């Protein structure tokens, strides 16, 4: 027995609950719009927690992302970030990380140079902004400080030993150790479970006590990303105090904490910020009318119908459901927006997986005009008040270019700016 259809109205309907969708809602709220956001779990769950702006361009690692952006504009004029100025991108980026900080997850502000974010295999990646819980690791690597990295019995896919061995040449003062996590003896443990447990003082104390005897002069201690879920900065501070050294987190293989942390942070904070958020519901259908769009969603017990003056599409790619494919062609899932693509799938992927040029399929997607409105084959906007942002956009390869967060945040910023203007 369903309860019938609930109807709501909003100025801007954001479809998608990834970084782009959440960033769009944040910016739209800041611009004073009435926002409703819909979607379902997606690729954000798999983030390392690092926010990249542009780490690789022209197949090379770039230390200066701003200069790299200048080169990007020259070399890839159709890249979604190429139409935006560095100042706009910086404003967007800092706006997003500041908002995250206010919600309870501190991030470093965008600097002039990329940081070397630590990865679990004992290598580093170029990234622009890192969670406060991961910052000390970057310093430790830079200074070659005496550091102890710890992993835990029963934790799949994170090896402190591998971290140590692979960093050994660059970081000789690095050591590794293994512990049993307090209260998690003889069992498989997920980082999420450890993180939640670390939100209690009893576990914080027990873990600190287990770590202290292993220090042996270490100035830094690295842990897999488990320092709490919804108050990581507080957990970090308390654990540092209890152990007496600097602590840092290292991202782990999914299912990992940083993505869950972001998702729960947004889900917690958005209702308080005044955005209507339905993180459980996928939009089933959208119809455009004269004054805007009607969105149809199906909840477990009731259907939802949303009258929106404007729509921002941030549904991501295949993993998040924004794009799909059959054996022969790609399509956009919700509105069947045109995707310019080669005939057949022969050209989608290169022969070599790690070909530094990346796979052409990653650059296929929704094409937009300068105000981030999806365009049809004739080059005209599909609808005056339909906007798109994030990974669904064409002409980018965010995973290879290390520009996922930058792309999501900057395009969300500009798309909401355009939406605000369109709404008058």
């Amino acid at each position, binding site marked *: 027995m369903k309860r019938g259809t609930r109807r709501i109205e909003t100025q801007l309907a954001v479809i998608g609950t990834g970084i782009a969708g959440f960033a769009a809602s944040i910016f739209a709220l800041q611009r004073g719009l009435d926002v409703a956001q819909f979607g379902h779990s997606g690729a954000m769950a*798999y983030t390392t927690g690092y926010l990249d702006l542009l780490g690789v361009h022209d197949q090379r*690692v770039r230390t200066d992302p701003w200069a790299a952006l200048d080169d990007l504009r020259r070399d890839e004029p159709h890249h979604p970030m190429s139409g935006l100025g560095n100042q706009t991108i910086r404003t967007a980026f800092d706006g997003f990380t500041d908002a995250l900080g206010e919600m309870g997850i501190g991030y470093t502000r965008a600097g002039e140079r990329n940081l070397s974010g630590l990865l*679990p295999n004992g290598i580093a990646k170029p990234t622009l902004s890192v969670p406060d819980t991961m910052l000390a690791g970057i310093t430790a690597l830079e200074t070659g400080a005496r550091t102890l990295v710890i992993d835990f019995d029963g934790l799949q896919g994170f*090896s402190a030993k*591998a971290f140590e061995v692979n960093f050994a040449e660059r970081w000789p003062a690095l050591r590794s150790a293994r512990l049993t996590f307090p209260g998690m003896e003889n069992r498989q443990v997920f980082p999420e479970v450890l993180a939640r447990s670390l939100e209690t003082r009893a576990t914080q104390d027990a873990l600190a006590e287990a770590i202290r005897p292993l220090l042996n002069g270490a100035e830094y201690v690295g842990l897999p990303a488990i320092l709490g879920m919804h108050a990581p900065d507080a957990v970090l501070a308390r654990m540092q105090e209890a152990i007496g050294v600097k602590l840092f987190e290292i991202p782990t293989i999914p299912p990992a904490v940083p993505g869950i942390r972001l998702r729960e942070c947004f889900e917690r904070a958005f209702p308080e910020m005044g955005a209507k958020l339905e993180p459980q519901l996928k939009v089933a259908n959208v119809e455009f009318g004269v004054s805007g769009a009607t969105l149809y969603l199906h909840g477990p017990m009731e259907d939802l119908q949303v009258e929106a003056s404007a729509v921002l599409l941030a549904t991501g790619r*295949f993993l998040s459901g924004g794009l799909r494919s059959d054996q022969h062609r790609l399509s956009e899932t919700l509105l069947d927006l045109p995707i310019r693509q080669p005939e057949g799938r022969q050209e989608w992927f290169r022969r070599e997986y*790690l070909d530094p040029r990346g796979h052409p399929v990653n650059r296929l997607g929704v094409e937009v005009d300068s105000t981030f409105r999806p365009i049809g084959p004739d080059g005209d906007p599909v609808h005056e008040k339909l906007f798109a942002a994030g990974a669904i956009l064409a002409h980018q390869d965010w995973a290879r270019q*290390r520009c*996922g967060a930058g792309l999501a945040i900057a395009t969300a910023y500009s798309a909401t700016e355009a939406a605000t203007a369109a709404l008058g």
Partner: protein
Amino acid sequence: MNAMAKRIHEADVLVIGGGATGSGVMRDLALRGITCLLIDRKDLNAGASGGNHGLLHSGGRYAAADAETAAECMREGEILKRLAPECIDDCGGVFVAVEGDDVDFAARFPEHCRVAGIPCEPLTAAEAREREPALPEGIIAAYAVPDATIDPFRVVLENVGHAERQNDSRYLPHTEVEAFEIVDGTVISAQCRDRRSGDPIEIRARQFINASGAWAEKVARLAGCKDVSLLYSKGTLLISNTRVTNGVVNRLRLPDDGDILVPGGTVSLLGTSSVTVEDPDGVAPTIPEVDRILAEGAAMLPVLNETRFVRAFSGVRPLLKSAGSEADGRKANRGFALFDHEDQGLTNFATVAGGKFTTFRLMAEKAGDLVAQRLGNAEPCKTNVEPLPSGDALRWTEPGAAARDWFKRSDPTDMILCECEMVARSAVDTILQDAPGAEDHMSLKAIALRSRIGKGACQGAFCSMRVTSYLYDRGVYDSPDGLRLMREFVQERYKGVRPVLWGAQMPQAELAEILHCGLAGMDLAADEDGGTGK
């Protein structure tokens, strides 16, 4: 390490080629008390033995064109079912003709089977669909035959494992023959190279058996023998995410693309194409091949249009050249030949080539007879009576075996490393300890070959990272080389994934790339290796 220090090995017999035939020869000889060294330039089943359906032919497939091969398949199949039941799923098979297929060919099928000695039971369309609910309406003819499936990896591992337990016989992977030292018509040694370290290896033996499958002509030429002439027929197959049918389903027509669907435990294999290629090296499935196979297969089993495929792979059939075979590999002789090379002036070198996986035991028996006779060993072949035992470290290639084992033991500290196929640390531990090649440096790829790791829906996206972590934990890896091996592994997996990337496999591939690039930095590291990791 001193690169100049040449390692020297000695054995009664050197067997070249770690496929079904080579490992079969090794076991055959070991059971006669003869000590062998088995080498492969890669690892076990690197050629056609690992690149096939896993179909234990009743012979029905060849009944119309080659009654002799058909009969041989039938006889050998029965022997293997009796002696190696743990490697075999005796699931039965059907031949079906659908609308548009040749009615007369279908009608002659029972007679062809009778001639070859293959039991063949006619089925009504309803009976056929009862056996195989995935079959469509509109079947015009159907017959049941005693087809079965065989795990080619398990067979080869068990062959080697059994041989190693008989005497000092040993297996050396990654060992490639570069030259033979021949004195007065006698091969004294094989000059080899360790393909990973680049170190030279000399292997001295009294007898040399070339069982290198598609590479047999090349190896024979190294010994100066020009009498082996092979045709290379590339066959491509698709692997589905789940098992589509209960038994083997064959299209009742002359062999063509996409007309056999073979269960492989928890998956199904659809194939195969047959394209003559110049070189047995470097074959990979292509998108047009995959599309053609799928279109043909779906005509027989429409459900394949909605099936998630996780991988495609190609093998090269080494076929003996015969008249008319140049143009069409399917017309080539599916039989095998034993070359004693005496007319090439050699007295202790032989090549066994051609044939089918189903007949590998017979091929090994014939080669074994020759070698035993040359060595003055009067022991008869025992592989036709001695059951193939089951080794604890060798049973992990069977789909679901690791999962069941883990579940039954219910040890909460035994972490699962490959979630799709549920392969736990304990299984990896036994492989590291006891599987053929274990005394050697065992990489992720070698462990995957000996288990189901990397074979599930994620095709190694996650388990490559988890197993690599574990190998570092265990000290198997102790340098950044472990990361290079991980990259190699996922690149190799990708070659099979690429042609089936659509539908449900696209999100999987996207996630894999996010992990491999974003979290593991493989693309940047590969770049440092020098481009594409080659």
